[in-house]
Structures are given as structure tokens and as C-alpha cells.
């Protein structure tokens, strides 16, 4: 579905030289799969994501979606066909919730009635009753509601591919948990192909079909969460997983005070 072939990105740097943000990266994302790119900030995961909808142009390599090289596509229509959700949400403050969700269909010149119907459908899906929320302004929503509207906006034009950049980074843990479950349901229901970027290891392990661990622009390891968790391929990956592992052990110990320790394993 999405195929990154030896993709690199070099940013013109300062006096110390150019910065290699992404270093000859190759990844295949299957249809309906959720791939989570995991890594510390500056590892190149966001740059990788933005190259998929051409917010950033690669310095070398090719990216194909559905067998077509995206370099041959018009970036504007490419972006309209791909959902994009990011931590900043970026709802248009001068538009109503309905206008925000209907933004891409409006850009695509859908008939008005079809846009309205689609907006109501999505509002229902994200659990905001249309009659009550349609005409609200973004500032009248909670953080979680804003992020839901952001997701609805990304999906409005029936996008089959969703790019998510730390989508839950700005919301509180309880809301985050709810949103994560909603996304999990939504992607199964809509058969979405998702590429998501996060630095939250637990989030990556819980949401992903496969996790790609990145460092310094390179892919260290890619595989199902259980495999990554069980068999980290390198010292770096192991260290990254250390904290969630320790937390899991402690939680387990709390829940089963009598059980012998060191036996917890996934």
C-alpha cells in the first residue's frame, strides 16, 4: 500500500554542516495495517511521516502509494486524499466545527448537501451529537473533543490512509486512553491504513500492528509489538523498552503481591 524505498532527507544545516534527518529508509506498509514509528525526538520519524504526504520532499529515494510514485502526483490532491492528524490539531478558529470537518470535501467541491450529511455522520461517529456541536467554534470544545474533530476532519473525504503525528500528545491520560480505543475501533471499521509517529512506547506497543523503532534517521528494528518487546534487536531498542517493562513489572507486583517476581513475561 505505502512503500518507502531508500528514502533520505538532508536538511541544509548551519556552519557545522548538513543534517541527515532520514537515512536511506525502506519500509512497506500493508493495506489495513497500523505502523507506528517509535523513537526519541529528533530521530527522523516526523520527517518520514511528512514525506508521505509531501509536506516534506525527500532528498533521495521514492515513495509509492498504491503502486504510484507520489513524486508524479499533485501534492495538493495527494494531501486531500490522505488524512493528516497532528499534536497541534490546528482547527481553523474562525470556522464552525461543521466547517472544519467539511473542509476537505469543500475543497473537493462536493455538493453542499453531501458535505452536510458527511459532517453529521462523522460527528455521530466521534460521539459529538451533531445538533449540539455542528455550529460550535473550536474554542468551545475540550482538548479531547478538539482532537476528535481533528480526526473527523482528516477522514471527511473518505481517506483510506491516515497519517498521525503524536496525535494524543496534548491530551490528559484518561482522554488519551479513550481516544486510543476509539481510533483502534475506527481503523478496523473503516479499514484504514495508518502510519503513526510517537515517542510513547506504551502507546506504540498497544496500538500498532507493527512497530518501527527509529534512531538517527535509521530504522533499528521493525516487527510486531510482542516480538519487539520480547526480542529487542539491539542495546538501544532494549533500553527504550526498559521503562515500560519495569512499569509493567511493578504493576503486576501490585496486582499480585504473592506471585514470585521475575516471572512476568509477555
Amino acid at each position, binding site marked *: 500500500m505505502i512503500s518507502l524505498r531508500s528514502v533520505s532527507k538532508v536538511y541544509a544545516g548551519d556552519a557545522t554542516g548538513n543534517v541527515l534527518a532520514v537515512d536511506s529508509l525502506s519500509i512497506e506498509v500493508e493495506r489495513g495495517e497500523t505502523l507506528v514509528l517509535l523513537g526519541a525526538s529528533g530521530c527522523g520519524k516526523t520527517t518520514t511521516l511528512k514525506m508521505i504526504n509531501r*509536506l516534506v520532499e525527500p532528498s533521495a529515494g521514492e515513495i509509492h502509494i498504491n503502486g504510484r510514485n507520489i513524486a508524479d502526483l499533485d501534492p495538493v490532491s495527494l494531501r486531500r486524499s490522505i488524512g*493528516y492528524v497532528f499534536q497541534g490539531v490546528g482547527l*481553523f478558529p474562525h470556522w464552525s466545527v461543521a466547517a472544519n470537518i467539511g473542509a476537505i470535501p469543500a475543497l473537493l467541491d462536493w455538493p453542499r448537501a453531501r458535505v452536510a450529511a458527511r459532517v453529521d455522520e462523522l460527528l455521530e461517529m466521534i460521539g459529538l451529537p451533531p445538533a449540539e456541536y455542528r455550529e460550535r467554534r473550536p474554542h468551545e470544545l475540550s482538548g479531547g473533543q478538539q482532537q476528535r474533530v481533528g480526526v473527523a476532519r482528516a477522514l471527511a473525504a473518505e481517506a483510506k490512509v491516515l497519517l498521525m503525528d503524536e496525535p494524543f500528545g496534548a491530551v490528559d491520560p484518561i482522554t488519551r486512553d479513550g481516544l486510543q480505543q476509539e481510533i483502534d475501533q475506527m481503523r478496523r471499521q473503516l479499514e484504514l491504513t495508518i502510519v503513526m509517529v510517537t515517542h510513547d512506547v506504551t502507546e506504540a506497543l498497544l496500538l500498532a500492528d507493527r512497530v518501527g523503532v527509529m534512531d538517527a534517521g535509521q530504522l533499528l528494528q521493525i516487527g510486531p509489538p510482542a516480538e519487539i518487546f520480547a526480542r529487542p534487536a539491539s542495546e538501544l531498542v532494549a533500553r527504550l523498552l526498559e521503562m515500560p517493562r519495569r512499569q509493567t513489572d511493578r504493576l503486576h507486583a501490585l496486582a499480585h503481591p504473592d506471585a514470585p517476581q521475575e516471572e512476568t513475561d509477555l
Partner: protein
Amino acid sequence: MSAQLESQLAQLPAYFASHVLLTVGALAAGVALALPLVGLAVRKPTLAGPLLGAASVIQTIPGLALLALMVPLLGRIGVAPALLALILYSVLPVLRNGVTGALEVDPDVLEAARGIGMTESQLLLRVQLPLAAPVLVAGIRTAAIWTVGMATLSTPVGAASLGNFIFSGLQTQNSAAVLLGCVSAAVLALALDALIRLAEVATRRRDARLAWTSGLLLALLVALASWPPIAAAQRAGDRPRVVVGAKTFTEQYILAELLAMRLRASGFGVEKRASLGSTVIFDALAAGEIDVYVDYSGTIWANQMKRRNTPSPGLVMEAMTEWLAKTHGILVLGRLGFENAYGLAMRRDRAERLGIATLADLAARAPQLAVGADYEFFARPEWIAVRDRYGLAFREQRSFDPTLMYAALVEGHVDVISAFSSDGRIVAFDLRVLEDPEQALPPYDAVLLLSPQAATRAEVVRALRPLVGALDDARMRNANKRVDLDARSIAEAAAELARSLPR
């Protein structure tokens, strides 16, 4: 006094109307020019600096100078140069606020807009400009107020405005007229500001009725200003048209009215362009934008012909008549009969105490004395000639508005002033005009000048010829005194002067 106020009020609708048209026209064009520039600056941030810089440079040019610069640039006087200057002036606040507003838009919102597939122009029109709107509109309101204020300065380039009250009022010591001009301009500024604010609120609230109301009010204002009975009060109507010019002092206003009276009596429709700058008016006559005005032989001799010598009045007249006809096609209809020489004057008591009767006497005392003059004088060739011939070096040089200059002399802030020999105030304040034994100053006979086109119109020549030789020094000085000291209106003084002329 009340008759004077009445005659001023009669002109208010016409001046107000042209002020409205100038301001609204310039503002509309200025905003129309600034908005694409805002777009350009936002899309290409490297251009933002130079664009804002250029607009700021225009802004630093003093308003009057910017207006005056437009005259040689466009080669004409009137509404066009005024409008151009006002447009340039109104661009900066709109541009600056628009760019600031657009650059302050939340970067997350911009990333989202690009991420969902907006083109750069959709981003600008649907996101950046609407979000910048409140700041942008504040800029438009600033521009509106500045433009109303600066439009009062378009009088000297020949565009009628509320400035006509202010300029002529200042020159003729008519504070009621000055106040009328200022108050009217303030009312217009507040009204425009309120209208723009109303439009902004309407846009923000998406209130169609409010938007219609503000649009209608603005349309009504413009329609009223262009309504013929108001706007054309100054214009000629169907009758053959003659445009009479005047410089910015009392004598010129009176003479222009006198010429207008004669022309009207002969069946012409007369338009007046008063308060023109002294080189602007000559160029306007040569270009045929005005048909007739009164100038002074010495001024033409020194400023236009660039002569430095000072031969006898007869020779100056002869050479000037020939030169004007040959180089500009301007007809010198003749001498009006009086002289209005530039001279240096002192309070009689002070001159006597210091023993000064001539410019040569003055030169000896000059290092202890202060000299005051009107804005032009120190830049004029006549001053250079006098200064160099007599070796005048004063302790201090100060420029004044002519009205205030006399007060400064009487109160002793300066010892010597530049003065016009026909000025009624010379007698009234008991001043002594110092003699010029070396004849450094050229003769200043008042001469009636006709544009090349007007010179070919026999009817115009016939209507004006009786004025030649009819105005002696005493008559002119008396008419000036009626305005400057007795606070009569220009129209009254001109009518009295007309009645006093030999039949």
C-alpha cells in the same frame, strides 16, 4: 463677521463633497493596492522587509512635500496628483497591519491547512487573511483617519478639499474658517472610522443586515458627495468655463475673486483653484490647467527666467512679455497698476532708534538682529541677491507663517521681516520698508497672465482687459487691509474693490 461665516458655510457642501470623494477614492485604491502586496509579502517573506521598508519611506516624506512631488511627476495639478499621493500614503498602515496579522497566525493552523491540501492561495484567502482581518481592519481605520487629515493638504496642488478653509483661513486671519475646516475634517474622519468599524463587526458576526447597513451608509455618503447640485457648486455648468488661479495669500484670493466676478458678469462659468503653490501655479498656467491668474514681474524674472540682474521696470516688463510668449505661449495682458514688491521691513520706532533707513544701514547692524520671513523667502533668488549685494548676515533667521510673522515683529521676537509692499499691515502696524539704494530687488509689478488657450479666446480677453491699469497701490492695499485687519470676507473685499474701480 456673520456675513463672513455665511459665505464660508456656503462653500462647505462643495468642499466637504470633494474631500469625501478624495478620501474614499484614495482609501479604496490604497486598500486595493495593499491587499495583493500583503499576499505577496506573506507568501514570499523575503519580500516583506523591502515592501514594508518602501512603504515606510513614503510615509516619512512630509505630507505636503509628497503631494507637491506628485505635480511634476504627473505633469498636472488637481485631483490626480492629490489622489496619487493619498493612495501611496494609505498603503503603509494597511500593508503593515495585514502582514503583521497574517504572520501572527498560529503555525499549527497553517500546518493543518497545508496538511489537508489547501493550495497556497486558498491558505491565504481562507485562513491567513480572515484570521488577520481584525488587525488588518485596524490598519484600514488608521489609514482612513490619516487620509482624511492629509487630504486637507491637497489644496495647494489644486484639488479642492476642506483644506481650502484651513489654508485661506490661516492666510486671511479668519479663525472661523480654519475651525470650520478642522471640525468638518474631524467629523468626516470619525464617520469613516465608525463605518469601517461597523463593516468589520458585520463581517466578524456574519451579520448580513449590519453589512448592508454599513455598505449603504458608505454608498450614501459617496452618492451625496457626487450629487451634481453639491459637487458642481464649484463647477461651471453649461456655460463656457474659465479656471482662475490664486496663490496662498490674501491679495491673491481677492484678485481671483475680482477676476471671477468680471468673468461671471460676461457670462462665463468660473472655477477657482485657490491656495496653489507659487511654482505649481505657473506650471498649471503653462499647461492650460488654469486659464488666468495674477503674478508679479519680479517673481517671473527671478524664478522662471532665472535672471540675477535688476534692470528698470520697463525693461523687465518688455523682456518678460516676450520671454513668456516665446517659451510658454503665455499672454501678458498687462500691468494691473499696483506693485507688490518684496522688501525688508522693521517697526518704525525701532528702525529710527537704530538709525536704519536703507538696506545698507541694516547690513551694519545685522549681526545683532534677528530676521523673520515667510516660508519661501530664504529660498528665493531675491533674498540671495539682497543678502549678497549688501552683505547681510543676521544673528538669527526664522521662517514663519505670514500671519504670525507680523505678530512676531510687533512683539519684538524678530527685528526685521520680509514684507510685501501692498500689504495693508505695513500701514496698520506702522512699519518702515527699508530702501534698496543698490536696486538689488527687481520690480514687482502685478501682471495679468493668460494661458496659451485663454489667450486665443477673445471673449475672455475682452472681459479682463478693463482691469489693466485700474488697480493702483492705494486701492490694493486698502482691499488687503479690509481682509487682514477689518476681518471682512474675501468676497466682500473683492466687491468693494470692484465698486471702487474707475468705470
